[in-house]
């Protein structure tokens, strides 16, 4: 038998191998797309990528299959998630790199991580001439990453539920739509698939209104929906959403990325008949307030400097980028450098704060998450109220999130810790940017964008940026998407094993 350390990794290797093999099988979707569109080279690229990924993942899964029944502890369950993302990134980058659209394998990995974490920054070369097959893969990755690749595996791939909850928490979601997380994972995917149908149809229509021929409108509709729902921010053309020059298209995308940024528990509650939840939920209330306040700040800044000529422009440029940033989507209707040249400090500040605050917990969005912000504000208000109250008075904080609950110190502490981790990561990434000579405001903007998994860019992210900074951003996206814990758990496990030798 293997020693304890070997055993620990053996138990982790099996599910990771299975997830990787699953990602290989999914490459058949772009493969078929390429075949249908007659892109023979791209079809070969995906055949190679898919087969290589299945071979490697499958071999590992088979080799360690006998460890499948072993119980996974917390650190192992979380390591499964962190490692699935890491190896998934390495293998999903293979077709990107083979397609010739990237200058280096690191660039390809960066784009996979950006896609899976639903960030939306891209280093791809000459996007306007990229094949439909590769575009399908880009948007598929961002869509899968939004729900979570481990959630996907839990829902459809893994048999038995050993360690399921630990892996699920490791992927940055901790709410249950149903008591069993396997059923929760299935519900998440069912909700997403239903919206995929609705959203693609709506954006297909919007694309035709914008003037796209029906065939192209369908593909663009599908892709833009995938990027909107997962609050990803990829688009098939280099101008992103500006390409369509259409108010109808912009509003339709905004509706879907807004819906995508809602908590899956909220979706589930509303879809199962609790309509009033939208008004009462602490998270939607917090999100509405921050959106309104930040919109006011950004608008004040943009109007003071006379950046946009009228209210319509202010809506389509100012509000659109703000809400796109706040939901951590990252769709853009301006050029990256316009932020720097035109927006002014006040509006940029509002946008940076919006990107850091982010959308809802247990959604496809990133950032601090509105639920945590709401909890912290409420508990802070309680402490202030306590100061003025008699010492013997017992105060409790009640919040409404799907059901009424009483806040305990543990959940307040949890919310604060994660928010603190986000702020620390944001600061570190900003510092890294400045070390590479990027001015403070631009570094802070780009760093907020990677920390919140947003994808808006002020022009720092480009294939020409230093490799070191690419790695910093890549790791930041990974940490932020998985909400730190699983990667820290992985690090702790590795460290402990290293020390024991």
């Amino acid at each position, binding site marked *: 038998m293997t020693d304890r350390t070997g055993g620990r990794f053996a138990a982790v290797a099996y599910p990771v191998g299975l997830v990787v093999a699953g990602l290989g099988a999914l490459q058949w979707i772009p493969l078929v797309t390429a075949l249908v569109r007659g892109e023979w080279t791209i079809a070969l690229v995906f055949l190679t990528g898919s087969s290589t990924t299945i071979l490697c993942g499958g071999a590992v899964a088979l080799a360690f299959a006998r460890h499948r029944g072993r119980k996974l502890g917390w650190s192992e369950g979380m390591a499964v998630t962190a490692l699935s993302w890491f190896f998934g990134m390495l293998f999903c980058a293979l077709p990107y790199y083979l397609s010739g659209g990237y200058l280096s394998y690191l660039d390809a990995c960066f784009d996979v991580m950006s896609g899976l974490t639903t960030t939306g920054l891209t280093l791809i070369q000459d996007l306007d001439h990229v094949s439909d097959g590769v575009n399908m893969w880009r948007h598929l990755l961002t869509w899968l990453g939004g729900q979570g690749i481990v959630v996907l595996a839990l829902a459809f791939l893994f048999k*038995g539920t050993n360690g399921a909850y*630990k892996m699920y928490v490791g992927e940055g979601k901790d709410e249950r739509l149903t008591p*069993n997380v396997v059923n929760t994972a299935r519900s998440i995917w069912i909700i997403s698939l239903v919206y995929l149908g609705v959203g693609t149809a709506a954006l297909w229509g919007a694309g035709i209104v914008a003037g796209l021929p029906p065939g192209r409108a369908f593909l663009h509709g599908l892709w833009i929906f995938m990027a909107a729902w997962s609050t990803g921010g990829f688009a098939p053309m280099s101008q992103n959403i500006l390409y369509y020059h259409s108010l109808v298209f912009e509003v339709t995308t905004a509706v879907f990325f807004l819906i995508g940024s809602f908590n899956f528990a909220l979706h589930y509650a509303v879809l199962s008949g609790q309509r009033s939840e939208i008004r009462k939920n602490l998270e939607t209330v917090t999100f509405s307030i921050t959106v309104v306040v930040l919109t006011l700040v950004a608008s004040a800044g943009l109007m003071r400097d006379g950046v946009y000529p009228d209210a319509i422009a202010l809506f389509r440029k100012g509000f659109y980028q703000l809400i796109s940033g706040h939901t951590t989507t990252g769709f853009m209707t301006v050029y990256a450098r316009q932020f720097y040249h035109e927006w002014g400090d006040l509006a940029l500040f509002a946008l940076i704060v919006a990107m850091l605050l982010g959308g809802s917990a247990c959604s496809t969005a990133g950032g601090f998450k509105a639920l945590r912000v709401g909890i912290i504000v409420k508990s802070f208000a309680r402490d202030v109220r306590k100061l003025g109250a008699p010492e013997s008075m017992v105060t409790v904080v009640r919040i409404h999130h799907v*059901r009424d609950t009483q806040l305990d110190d543990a959940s307040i502490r949890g919310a604060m810790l994660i928010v603190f981790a986000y702020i620390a990561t944001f600061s570190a990434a900003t510092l890294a940017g400045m070390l590479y000579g990027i001015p403070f405001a631009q570094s802070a903007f780009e760093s907020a964008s990677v920390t919140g998994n947003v994808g808006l860019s002020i022009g720092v992210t480009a294939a020409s940026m230093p490799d070191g900074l690419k790695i910093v951003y890549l790791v930041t996206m990974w940490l932020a998407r998985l909400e730190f814990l699983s990667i820290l758990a992985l690090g702790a496990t590795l460290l402990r094993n290293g020390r024991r030798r």
Partner: protein
Amino acid sequence: MYIIIAGCRKVGSNLARTLAEEGHDVVVVDSDEKDFELLGSGFNGMTLAGMPIDEDVLRSAGIEKADALAAVTDDDNMNVMISQVARGIFHVPNVVTRIYDPEREKVFRSMGLRTLCPTMLAVERIGAMLTSGSDAADGAREASS
């Protein structure tokens, strides 16, 4: 299946774990939060601290959509009450009640509850093991543990 388990002691916690691993949606309700430690780490189901006879508690546990309920707290009276609430008010299709006291079990069974009396089960099994001394009874014991 959506299953609610009232009581999280030895039987409740093991039952909950087994059912959750089989892929069922399990909610465990217990008035004492400490009892949930028996579930072990990473229990793949939901726990809810509160009196299981409280209708609001049962409602938050999702009793309205539950397919089955097991009343396995240590208190016979409590179990009976939970079962009556579940059947009478929430119309849960399948309710199982554990009652230690054989006399009371007979009464409640005659009232239409689906009951189980571990005392009588143990009496029968141990009696069989003592008198027959056969392996069959031992095997049965091992399978049930």
